[in-house]
Each structure stands twice: as C-alpha cells, then as structure tokens.
C-alpha cells in the first residue's frame, strides 16, 4: 500500500495552528496595530531593529517559523474547506494550496538567508 502523505501536511497544519493559537493575537496586535499606531514604541519595528532581529539566529528562526507554519496551516485548511464547498478537483486544489505555501516558505527562507548573520 502506498503511504499517505497526509501525516506530513497534518503535522504542518497542527504546528501552524498551535503557534497561531498561542501567540497569533499578540503578534497581530503588535505588528499591525500597536507599533504602527504608536501604542508601543514606534521604533520597535524600524529597519535597524528588524534587520538585527532577522540576522540573529533565533530571530531568523522565529520569523521563518511564523511565516512558513502559518502558510502551511492555512493551505491545509483552505484545501479541505474548498472540498467541503463542492470543489472536487482535490489534486488540483491541494497542488495549488500546498504549492503557494511552498512558494511562500521558499521566498521567506531564501530572503532570510540572504540577510546574513
């Protein structure tokens, strides 16, 4: 019997969902509301700070994990919900959703690597 690839995608879905559930609300509040609208220090996310953060090993890993896992989480859910909504081209939908998540992961990974350390 051919092995299912489902555990791989489900693990990425689960990891992304858990990460989003644990820190997502705070992350969105900080990056999208508090810093741009000066409820926190507006220099928190300035170029120098974010460059230093993304060059640091732990910071690089954090940024990569958030972007990649959020994308794989969303890709898996959207693929399944499209099926539930009557889109039965399962292979095509999965290729599109996982393909976009892979593309996002690759762009994030490549960019973070080229930022240096």
């Amino acid at each position, binding site marked *: 019997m051919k092995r299912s690839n489902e555990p791989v995608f489900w693990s990425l879905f*689960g990891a*992304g*969902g*858990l990460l*989003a*559930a*644990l*820190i*997502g*609300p*705070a*992350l*969105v*509040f*900080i*990056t*999208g*509301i508090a*810093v*741009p*609208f000066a409820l*926190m*220090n507006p*220099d*928190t*996310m*300035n*170029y120098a*700070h*974010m*460059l230093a953060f*993304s060059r640091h090993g732990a910071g690089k890993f954090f*940024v990569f994990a*958030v*972007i990649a896992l*959020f*994308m794989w*989480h*969303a*890709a*898996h*859910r*959207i693929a*399944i*919900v499209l099926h*539930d*909504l*009557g889109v039965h081209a399962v292979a095509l939908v999965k290729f599109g959703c996982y393909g976009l998540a892979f593309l*996002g992961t690759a*762009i*994030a990974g490549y*960019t*973070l690597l*080229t*930022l240096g350390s």
Partner: protein
Amino acid sequence: MSNQRPYVRSMDGWWKRNAYYLRYMAREMTAVFVAAYAVVLLVGVVRLGQGEAAFNGWLQALKSPLSLVFHLVVLATFVYHTWSWFNIMPITMPMMFVGRNRVTPGTITGIGLVAAVIACAALFVIVRGTYA
C-alpha cells in the same frame, strides 16, 4: 424500470443549515485571514531584504487606515482561532489520562486557553521590554 433520475438534494449552502455547521465554517474560514497575515509578514521580510527605503515603505503602508481595519479584522479572527483551536483540541488530540481518570475536554480547553493568554502576555512583555 423508470428512466427518471432520482431526486438528489442539492448540497449548495449546506453549511448554513445549522449552528454546528456554521461554527465549523467560521472556524475553517479563519485560515484565509491567517494566510493573509502571513503574506503581509512575508512582504515585510522581502522588503527588509531590499533595503531601508523599501522597508520604510512597508512600515508606512502599515500606518494606513485600510491596514488598521485589515489588522483589526485579522486580530478578531485570530482571537476566534485561538478560542476554537483549543475548543476542538479535546477531539483532535489522543485521549489523556491522569491515573485512571480521563482528562476532561473542559480541562484540556481550559489549559490551552490559559497557555495562550500566558504566551501572548509573555510575547507582549518581551517585545515591550526589548524595545522600550
């Protein structure tokens, strides 16, 4: 033999038929906003790699009213995601036992929500402390 085709009830809008399906759809639809937020962050990383001027453009875009509305909607869906994630956790994870007693669904959900509040507070305090 009848050559009439049997009646097949349409599945269109099935998720509007009861509250359970509606909650299911609401929970799954949070993924669209999780994806959108990930794209915003990805654009930020790409702009960071293109230099200071490009990154400042991204920061400036975050200050627009449209961005504020977008992030408020995303924030609301993330809070709903957190709530629903731990709400269904008792049925997505293996059964847990303490001694001979099964850990109740309410306990699992409660621990998850408390963990999320602590994690969010910790992230907030760390960021504020680092860039005071």
